[in-house]
């Protein structure tokens, strides 16, 4: 037994170094120059497109978009919801699974959190861009201005303002203190002076003192514990942006949970896509393993089914309530001008999803990627559908009118992709994108605490070879 242990420690000791090398090696000696530059070039081009679109918008006014009366909110707002929803997955994976002691999370949480940061940034930009007078957006903040006029705290928009800012701050802090130990590792591995200083500063002089670790863990876990309800509250408030209005198809108590689940759903989809791409790009198959894909697939399936439940409840609620306007709006979603968005959502969200019942589909990177992509698109349709079908036909037939997305809205949307990918690519280029120390911790704990059921090494546990 003891010998057994010593062997395993020997193997695991080398594993510690390997893991760090694998993770920290990527920023220090970047393996895939060409591909990265290609991606980064595209991302930069998109970013440029963003600035052009925003410039045109600011110069001329919101009129360059397709918005009109009655549909005075366009895809700017539906994209806002969509981006934010994607962002939530990062926090959920990272925080919720941490609390649930799901060690396999450690392979994913770092870039999931990074994704959160930039998704939330994109989301946060939209409401500002869509303002009639964007240069006055700060009037939503509570500050003692000359006229003593404060924000109107009963407005869902004010709630969103606070929610998004809080969420962004918390996400940044959570991500950063979670990264500090690996930054220290990078600092210690770095050979070039510049990188030593660079990582040295970012690492805040972290030296892995047991005392520090203890306090760090307290703070980290507490933040995680708080972040989960935060996610729920944030997206609930986003849903109130619609549900608080007396508009048929919006004014429903289903919305908050409906939105939160949808958010997690779309988020996990995007996480899966990124995971698949990264492991492929950086040969991380033995850190982000098929087992992780399998688990992601299961999460996706679960949240997807919950979202589907939301759809059903909505229909039920409309008919149970018997509100004629509600029922007409619902019926209009099925058959109206924008039925394409409803059926598009159904088709993309729930049809391919059923494949995930099969383990084969879950563990096949390609299939999982396609399904996730479908979900991302489907959730976009859903947000669009919820927004437009609510507005374009409400109470008075006289004010009904259609909405066409203008070219500048599409370019802005494409540009947002740039806003998302440029910093994301920089991050995976220059910072350790997998939480090496947590993987090592899991490896160690895997050694000490034997799970009677499966006899596996810690290394196997985290790398998930069944």
């Amino acid at each position, binding site marked *: 037994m003891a010998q057994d242990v010593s062997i395993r420690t020997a193997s695991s000791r080398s594993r510690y170094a390997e893991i760090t090398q694998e993770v920290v090696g990527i920023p220090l000696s970047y393996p895939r120059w060409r591909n990265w530059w290609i991606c980064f070039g595209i991302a930069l081009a998109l970013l440029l497109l963003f600035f052009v679109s925003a410039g045109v918008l600011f110069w*001329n*006014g*919101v*009129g360059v978009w*397709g*918005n*009109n*009366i*009655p*549909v*005075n*909110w366009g895809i700017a707002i539906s994209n806002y919801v969509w981006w934010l929803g994607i962002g939530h997955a990062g926090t959920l994976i990272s925080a919720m699974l941490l609390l649930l002691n799901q060690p396999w999370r450690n392979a994913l949480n770092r870039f999931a959190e990074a994704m959160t940061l930039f998704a939330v940034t994109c989301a946060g930009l939209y*409401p500002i861009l*869509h*303002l*009639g*007078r964007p240069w*006055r*957006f700060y*009037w*939503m903040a509570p500050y003692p201005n000359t006229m003593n*006029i*404060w*924000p*109107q705290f*009963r*407005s*869902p*928009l*004010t709630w969103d*303002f606070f929610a998004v800012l809080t969420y962004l701050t918390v996400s940044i802090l959570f991500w950063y203190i979670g990264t500090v130990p690996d930054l220290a590792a990078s600092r210690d591995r770095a050979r070039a002076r510049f990188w030593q200083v660079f990582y040295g500063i970012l690492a805040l002089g972290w030296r892995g003192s047991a005392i520090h670790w203890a306090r760090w863990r307290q703070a980290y876990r507490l933040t995680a514990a708080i972040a989960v309800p935060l996610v729920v509250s944030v997206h609930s408030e986003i849903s109130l*942006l619609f549900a*608080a*209005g*007396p*508009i048929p198809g919006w004014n429903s108590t289903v919305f908050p949970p409906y939105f939160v689940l949808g958010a997690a759903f779309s988020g996990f989809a995007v996480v899966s896509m990124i995971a698949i791409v990264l492991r492929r790009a950086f040969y991380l198959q033995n850190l982000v393993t098929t087992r992780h894909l399998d688990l992601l697939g299961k999460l996706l399936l679960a949240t997807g089914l919950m979202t589907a439940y939301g759809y059903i409840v909505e229909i039920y609620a409309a008919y149970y309530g018997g509100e004629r306007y509600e029922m007409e709006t619902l019926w209009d979603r099925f058959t109206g001008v924008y039925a394409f968005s409803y059926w598009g959502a159904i088709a993309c969200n729930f049809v391919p999803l059923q494949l995930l019942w099969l383990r084969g589909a879950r563990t096949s990177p390609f299939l999982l990627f396609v399904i996730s992509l479908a979900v991302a698109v489907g959730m976009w349709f859903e947000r669009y559908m919820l927004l437009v079908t609510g*507005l374009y036909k*409400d*109470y*008075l*037939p*006289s*004010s*009904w*009118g*259609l909405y066409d997305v203008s070219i500048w809205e599409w370019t802005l949307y494409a540009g947002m992709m740039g806003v998302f990918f440029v910093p994301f690519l920089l991050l995976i280029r220059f910072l350790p994108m997998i939480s090496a120390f947590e993987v090592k911790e899991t490896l160690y704990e895997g050694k000490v605490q034997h799970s009677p059921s499966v006899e596996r090494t810690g290394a196997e546990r985290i790398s998930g070879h069944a």
Partner: protein
Amino acid sequence: MRSSGLHTGDADWIRRHLDGKSGHSFWRGLEELSEAPEFKRLLAAEFPSLAQGPMDFARRDVLKCLGASLVLAGLTGCSEDLNYSVPYVEAPENIIPGRPKYYATAVLMGGYAQPILGETHVGRPTKLEGNPDHPACLGATDAFTQAAVLGLYDPDRSRSLRYMGRPAAWAELDAMLVSQAARLDATAGQGFCLLTGATSSPTMGRQLKALTERWPRARWYIHEPAGEEGRFEATRLAFGQRLEQRFHLDRAEVLVCFDDDVLGPGPKQTYHARGWATRRQAAQRGEGGCKIWVAEPTPSLTGVMASWRAIVAPGRISALVAALASQLGVPSGPAHSLAEEERRWIEGAAVALEAHGGRGLVSVGHQHDPAVQALGLLINAKLGNVGATLTFAEPSLLQASDEGATLPDLVRRMEAGEVSSLAVLDCNPAYTAPADLDFAAAMERVETRFHAGLYFDETAALCQWHAPLKHDLETWSDARAADGLATILQPLIGFSFGGRSQHVILENCLGDVFTEDRAVVAETWRAIWGEPFEERWHSALVAGFIPGSAPPEVVPQFPLESAPPVASVSRAEELTVVVRTDPTVWDGRFANIAWLQELPKPLTKVTWDNVILVSPALAEKLKIETGSEVRLEASGRSVTGPAWVMPGQEQRTVTVFLGYGRTMPGRVMEGTGYDAYRIRTSRETWQFGGARLAPTGKKWQLASTQLHFALEGRDMVRFMPSEEASTKRSGAAQAKGKGAQRETIYPVYDYESPSWGMSIDTDLCIGCNACVVACVAENNIPMVGKEQVAKGREMFWLRVDRYYEGPPEDPRTVFQPVPCMHCEKAPCEMGCPVNATTHSPDGLNQQVYNRCIGTRTCLSFCPYKVRRFNWFDLTGNDPPEIQALRNPDVTVRARGVMEKCTYCVQRIRSAEIQAKIEGRAVRDGEIQTACQQACPTSAIAFGDVADSETIVSRRKASPRDYSLLEEVNTWPRTTYLARIEDETPGNGSKRG
């Protein structure tokens, strides 16, 4: 004033020469001057027309030109005080900036005066209101009158005299006219023709009389493309006398209209609507009835209000009138066979009319055969309506120099070369002449062509001379209103955009170049009144009309046998075309007024275009839909325009609208609509058969402000049987009325008096749009243009929704004006993150423009969608004229902010301030919103809802009171009165 004939330098030279001379010596100075060689050279330089040939023109002419030049050189361009005009209420001196002044005057429409009070701020007219003292309008106006003030400021108006298209000096024109006058004196006016639009101006009459006396061989022609000449024909036919028919709808409990849109747009709309509303309100109180029977081929505003609307082909009207006549025992030639539907309608109408002898009225559309109209008059005579609901008087409109003096005759003479000089005054035949007359070609044959008008229009382009006319609001003139009362027009504006008044131009034509419009008008009335003149003049200006000035009433003798009606014109297998004036740009004269272009047509809600109305059945048959381009052919002529599938349109009738497709350059009218004049002939001006319609396969992008017309079984507009409506509110009714405010989880704010609210009576609204334009004028609402309207971005704070109920071939049509509801439980306010829209203590839903950041949440949450958003900077680059037009009491909104109906808060506040100054409470009715003030049917009431004694409170106490979208429980301050359903015997669905 650069239009002086003399360059400043020269003018100085002359002044120097005349310095210190005055009276007699001044004239001697002129004598010497006229001999001076410098002046001869100067004159030759200035007046080539005179200088040409030997310089042997009469000394008199030279002096005239010289005098004119000096007078003009002496005039100054702008002056703050409105020189001689007399304000309505207060003295003209001491202008208090910020304090508007009101002047009583009138604007003209088809020759008739629309009496108004003009609101001016420091010499700038900003808003026109009806003259409350004038019996013809009692303070109401129509849409055209509301928009007239924009016509005054129109940047495209002609500003300078032109000769051969290039800017010229007035003195040149004067010289031309003077020498022409001299020539005409010699030939007794041989070859001189004058062409004007319809006019009722006594001064004009006097001048023309003078002209014809001085030049017996000169002829005066009138061309009014939308004139109702047919009515005069009818009276002549009925009793050999050309008389004006005057409807007294306030007395007509039964109104039977044969394709006659008495409530529709036109010079008499306000007058008629006022009368009808009076009647209708009495009926609401249970005092007598108020029913309208309409038989018409194409939907009209009158048809919408009808208790029973029969849809008949235009050709059937004669048969129907004849049938009614025989029903009522008026000899009417051979009986016509009637369809079942028609028979029931006729019988019903006959019964109703007989039951209301002397309280009924039969009217036949002016576009129908005079014989048929005459028969209608005879029916009225038989029923004893004449003298009660129908009276006759000498025509207010002047009559051309003789019977034959019609446009076709003029064109014939021009082609024959009998016209050597043609003066066109305020008339645009090049555009409005029937298609069978080649006016342009005829013009070629006229050697001197002179045009005076507001615009350098199609006709001006054909003339050597074009003189800009003064706008009605810039000039002194006089005219008669719909009830015949004369009004003296006085200028509202402190400065002038240049140009001369019609009267001055006429005087010029007579060779007098010294005159000035006020003098000409005063001369007329001095002759009528004698002394003491000034007092009467002053009081006439103060009052805005001259009491007792209406032409004497005539009681004609009816020979009860009449000309037999002609048979129907349309053959079954072909289409009949009916021509209508456009409800917003009329005959085209308003085509460059943006407010009217963007104003949704009452029945189609189309803006910036005219359409071709086709019945659903025909559309079905031809596989066309709304917006598809169609080619309409009749008697070898054709027009191509967008089709509009019109519910309630007679199956085989096609309606075209005049006034669009103009070729004159105007930044507003550019490329709008199609020109229906091109299919209109001088023989059949208003309707003709034998037309063919074919789709071209193209589509027109039409900008309609309302895309969905069906009520969808929702109860936005409610109906109530008359017996319920008239009963005093019962307890149950109380509860129902209170249903507007269901219980809420929110605290109840109690509003103490005053607390504002509005009540809109859908039973009175005729959808005329006056309120909409009034709102635009009062609140500086920008126009956005066709593309933006098509995108759904029009800015109207007040819209008139129009809904259909029932089968498309014969639906019930209802109008519903929708301003902001000023909800007490406003969702919009709850949605705003920056407190930019909140509730005022007196119950107003306020919008704070400079606090708004444009999140548009308020608009998303508004169940009525009455809020409007500035998608672009809509006002930044308005031309200075338009900026001068703006109401200084209302903020001009910036880009990116939300705006909406404010209940005209600026009027509320100024009234409150006034009341405070006088130390009293605000009186009920003291505050009128712009829409309420304009409404010709008093459908809108506004006031303090906290005080149960106010008009608005009493209206809200009616059992007909209901609020829009009660179920959303927003507690609206704007509520509606249900439309009353008349029970009409033997008429199932077609009620209300």
